[in-house]
């Protein structure tokens, strides 16, 4: 029997070149790919939305979002992804399918999305200006504060978008995009951000 050596690589392995891109000087936009995360889709079974909410509260100590929002626990982020469903984003396997199977056994179906999405974190003084080119929704702080989330599209690709906690006084936007669309969206993001100067990196740390 043939032996395989599976090598887990990011879908952006080829496209992502760390360092400076675009206009010289201070980078207005930072693009960081976050690698090696656990992402579980939790979707209520028919008529079990209330039970799922109870199970989520018991498991995470905080209510799962029922409107387009992202909430954080000590070691996970719960992101609304549609009616009666949310995503659990975490690291280290503590909230993987095996860990969540029992708590949600009678209320929700789980689907492991860890390797189906790419997570891109966008920050910097010009992040909002750059994202305005890609998103048709209003990302102004009054309309899209910290913790706001949206299931939307960017450049025709479905994305899950949410605003994380500010870093150095600046907004941080997170985008989850399907793995096979990631390289295309990545190049579009680079093109959109080039005029502001881009700082490109990847990280293992969840922001």
């Amino acid at each position, binding site marked *: 029997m043939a032996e395989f050596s599976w090598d887990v690589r990011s879908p952006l392995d080829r496209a992502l070149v760390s360092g400076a891109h675009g206009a010289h000087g201070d980078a207005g936009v930072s693009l960081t790919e976050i690698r090696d995360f656990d992402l579980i889709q939790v979707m209520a079974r028919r008529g079990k939305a209330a039970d799922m909410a109870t199970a989520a509260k018991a498991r995470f100590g905080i209510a799962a979002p029922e409107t*387009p929002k992202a909430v954080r626990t000590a070691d996970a982020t719960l992101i609304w992804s549609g*009616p009666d469903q949310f995503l659990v984003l975490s690291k280290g396997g503590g909230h993987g399918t095996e860990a969540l199977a029992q708590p949600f056994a009678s209320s929700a179906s789980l689907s492991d999305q860890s390797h189906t999405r790419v997570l891109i974190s966008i920050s910097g003084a010009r992040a909002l200006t750059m994202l305005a080119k890609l998103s048709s929704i209003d990302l102004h702080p009054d309309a899209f504060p910290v913790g706001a989330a949206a299931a939307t599209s960017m450049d*025709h690709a479905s994305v899950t978008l949410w605003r994380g906690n500010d870093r150095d006084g600046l907004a941080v936007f997170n985008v989850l995009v399907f793995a096979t669309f990631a390289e295309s969206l990545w190049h579009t993001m680079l093109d959109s951000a080039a005029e502001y100067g881009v700082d490109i990196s990847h990280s293992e740390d969840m922001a």
Partner: protein
Amino acid sequence: MRITCPFCGERELGEFTYLGDAKPVRPVAGASEDEVFDYVYLRDNVAGVMSENWYHGGGCRAWLKVTRNTLTHEISAVEPAAGAGAAKVGA
């Protein structure tokens, strides 16, 4: 044209797909050939207010029932289609 998704809020048309008349109801099993023919093929060509199915595929992936005036594109109501979002529909 923009559609206000009951789950996501107001979004651009590009996030939605039109699925046609929301009126036809699937006949019961064993219905006559005429009833099935009507359901599959016959559609009213409404000039005015009609009920339509739309799919928010570029967003929350919910099915929506949109009341739209085909002459003016005015949308007077958007509600979740049966089965979309149990919490809101109670299905």
